[in-house]
């Protein structure tokens, strides 16, 4: 223990300040306690939570345990069994080391540490978290979000410690149950489900300073965001965007540029080559030789992708399909200012008086050509119009969904074979939160086991999309955009998401007939000139504009 020499502030105040750094939310408590259990050599860790951890967090393990005296001293700040000298700081082999966790948690909850009656391991309980820091409590998100965060923490440790059996129980319901067989793939199976696990290939490659191993997805299995790119350095879950970049570079040309691979990658490296002490929650690391590590990841992943069962032909096929893709980034995530300044046509449209839109909207446009498989060039004989096929279709589907919601409910296109959807806890919570409304839009999703759902139908408007990917993409984006409390806004956002992910994409080839239909349908919508996100669906060039541009 490092003694506190100068004591200007009272101890409990210091602990609360430190708690601010260490304990942001229930998930941080779970993290600290699980780390302690792991450092104590536990092979079995049970995490129980009630009311998303706000009421209770209980972590019991079968680790080496603590004596009564140790329990007493552990509650003092900077007491730790994990380092003793400065030299140790540069050769850290344990997860925790600052000696801040227990006193921090104790200062913001009613905490109890007990030795297990069986003699091995301890049980730590933190009740009524943030009872004495109401400001912090107020900033907690909805229960489902907090459970999601906890699920993510436990998942990460279950992956990092396959030889330890993890259980996460939320309000009596088991969410994660990893077997602790010591095999990484078993842990991945427990966290991600069978479906995803089947699409993975193994990585195992050594480099000068260490080793890269784990599992990555085949190029056919992709996700809409980086949430499935998980890295561990010396078994510590970390975030380091350079590692993400190295991974994605290895997949370049194999998967569409706006899709991301699934990866659970471990980097084993001499502890002296990494600095983990750069972030209070130890989520970030610095490498002494960053480039070497990035190259190690890149080449390890490449190597696994090249072997596996993908011949050269397959790779080429994917390169080709790459070009057909083009899900755009959702517009509401783009900085709006740059949009308005860099795109004068857009602002111009906003200035159009309503009446004028009505008039132009009646004119039938005849499609002439599909430009870059993205825009429909059309004319009504007077003006030239460029229609963004994705934005236009999005508007059509959004209106159909909205109308269905208002009038007689949505048609639900049933699936030939129902699909099983395995989710991680945080995703399952997001889905649970939106399930009812999604089902009213035409999905038929039913809970099937703790984090799995059965999908039996999709909205009739979505029947051109692959059902499972549709729901996965929607969940991923819901997780990213966060939630609105207001029910109406929330439902509107969901309709936008369903419309966006069901609409034809840039790069989809359309026949003349399909283009005609698209234009016709567009003009039956409430607002044919903008997509639900407010982007224009078309740009029109009037004769006057042409005259001006040609200087006639």
């Amino acid at each position, binding site marked *: 223990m490092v003694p506190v020499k100068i004591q200007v502030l009272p101890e409990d105040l210091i602990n609360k300040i430190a708690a601010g750094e260490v304990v942001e939310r229930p998930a941080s408590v779970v993290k600290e306690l699980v780390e302690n259990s792991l450092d104590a050599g536990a092979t079995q860790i049970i995490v129980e939570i009630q009311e998303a951890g706000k009421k209770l967090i209980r972590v019991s393990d079968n680790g080496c345990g603590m004596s009564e005296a140790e329990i007493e001293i552990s509650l003092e700040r900077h007491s730790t069994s994990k380092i003793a000298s400065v030299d140790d700081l540069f050769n850290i082999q344990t997860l925790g080391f600052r000696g801040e966790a227990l006193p921090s948690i104790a200062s913001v909850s009613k905490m109890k540490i007990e030795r297990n009656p069986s003699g091995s391991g301890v049980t730590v309980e933190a009740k009524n978290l943030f009872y004495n820091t109401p400001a912090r409590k107020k900033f907690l998100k909805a229960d489902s979000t907090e459970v999601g965060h906890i699920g993510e923490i436990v998942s990460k440790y279950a992956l990092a410690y396959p030889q330890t059996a993890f259980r996460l129980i939320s309000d009596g319901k088991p969410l994660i149950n990893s077997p602790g067989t010591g095999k990484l793939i078993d842990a991945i199976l427990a966290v991600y489900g069978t479906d995803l696990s089947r699409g993975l290939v193994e990585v195992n490659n050594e480099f000068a300073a260490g080793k890269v191993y784990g599992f990555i997805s085949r190029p056919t299995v992709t996700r809409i965001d980086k949430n499935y790119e998980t890295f561990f350095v010396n078994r510590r879950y970390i975030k380091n965007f350079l590692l993400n970049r190295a991974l994605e570079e290895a997949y370049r040309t194999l998967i569409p540029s706006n899709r991301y691979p699934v990866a659970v990658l471990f980097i084993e490296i001499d502890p002296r080559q990494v600095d983990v002490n750069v972030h209070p929650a130890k989520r970030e690391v610095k490498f002494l030789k960053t480039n070497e590590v990035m190259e190690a990841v890149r080449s390890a992943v490449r190597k696994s992708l090249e072997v596996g069962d993908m*011949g050269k*032909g397959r790779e080429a096929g994917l390169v080709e399909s790459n070009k057909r893709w083009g899900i755009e980034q959702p517009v509401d995530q783009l900085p709006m200012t740059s949009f308005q300044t860099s795109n004068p046509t857009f602002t111009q449209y906003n200035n159009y008086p309503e009446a004028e839109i009505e008039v132009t909207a009646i004119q039938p446009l005849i499609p002439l050509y599909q430009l870059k498989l993205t825009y429909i060039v059309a004319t009504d004989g007077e003006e030239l119009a460029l229609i963004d096929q994705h934005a236009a279709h999005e508007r059509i589907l959004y209106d*159909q969904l909205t109308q*269905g919601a208002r009038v007689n409910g949505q*048609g639900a296109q*049933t699936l030939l074979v129902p699909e099983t959807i395995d989710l991680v806890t945080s995703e399952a919570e997001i889905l649970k939160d939106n399930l009812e409304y999604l089902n009213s839009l035409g999905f038929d999703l039913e809970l099937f086991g703790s984090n799995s759902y059965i999908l039996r139908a999709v*909205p*009739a408007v979505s*029947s051109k999309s692959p059902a499972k990917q549709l729901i996965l993409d929607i969940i991923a984006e819901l997780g990213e955009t966060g939630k609105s409390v207001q029910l109406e806004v929330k439902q509107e956002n969901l309709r936008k998401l369903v419309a966006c992910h069901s609409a034809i994409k840039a790069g989809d080839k359309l026949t003349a007939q399909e283009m005609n239909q698209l234009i016709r349908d567009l003009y*039956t919508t409430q607002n044919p000139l903008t997509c639900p996100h407010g982007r224009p669906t078309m740009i029109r060039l009037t004769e006057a504009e042409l005259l001006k541009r040609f200087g006639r």
Partner: protein
Amino acid sequence: MEFSCEKRELQIGVATAEKIVATRSTLPILGNILFEAGKGGIKLSANNLEVGMELGVKANVNKEGSILLPAKTLSGIVSKLPETKVTFKLNENGTVRISYDQSHFSLHSLPPDEFPALGKIKDGKTFSVDPEIFISMVKQTIFAVSNSEDKYMLTGVLMEVGKSNIPGETNNLRMVATDGYRLAKRGEKIEAKGDPAISAIIPAKALTELVKILEGKKKEELKVCVSADQISFRYEDIYMISRLIQGQFPDYKQVIPKKSSTRVTLDTRDFLRSAERAAVIASGSANVTSFEVKGESLHLTANTPDVGSVVEIIKAEVKGPERVRISFNIRLITDVLGAINSEKVMIEFGEGLSPGVIKPESGGEYLYIVMPIRTQEGV
């Protein structure tokens, strides 16, 4: 290298090879056609790494050798040549002189070394089939494949050779395609020496090209050879090879309904035209169209708020209870009606939300299963 041939022969060869040439590849060399002049004539090859093809063209070869010529430019030239004899000659500086009548072109060529060689299947399972039958099987299934790369194994057509284990079926060659919402299946009895057992998912792209190339050809049998990861087709001196899609195709037998309660027989053309008209309105409401059996007719109803509604009544022969009311995506219905050649078509309905089954009244073992749309007003 030097050879001469008839413009017509050359044009057919170049046009066929050009279909395989990669149009926007990251490997520029794939934009070329490989010319190999040997003893018996010349061989043209194209390869886009997904599908590869070679074919023979009759020619008088004066000097053997091989070169690469850019497909686009070459086909532009060849298609505009007069109907006469054309001579190709490789010069020492690497250009190819294409001469005809009094005139000539000089084209830059590339050395053939880096052009990826077409694979040959070793130890594959083989069978032969009438190309006309094969094409018709492809055409009746391929429209049901998924266009989405996310469902990779559904972007191809499953081809199976071997006895069918579905009761009542006598076929031993089957093609099946599905996008998860409907499924098309066609069976045919062929002479298959040695009864090979084959199950392979062929990329739709390869089949589309094959159909274009084989269209109208019926002189000889189409020879098919399948290995674990590739399939090849040979017709006369045309050879095509494609990779296969790896993955588990859904168990289609499981989705074929065992029984139906109501069977409606209609004139295929009447049905198709009515469905196409209903689709005009239905397109405004996610193509949802209601199917109702009333008396001796089938009623198709669609409506789109603020646009209008349609009721199409088609004369039908009805067997079983009349009380059928169920909705389908009308596009999934027009798709299959366009692919059926039989004069009459049968549509079978089951209980509740069970799938609709469409079959031609005559003309081979063909089955189309389409999943209904559940609507709020019930079924």
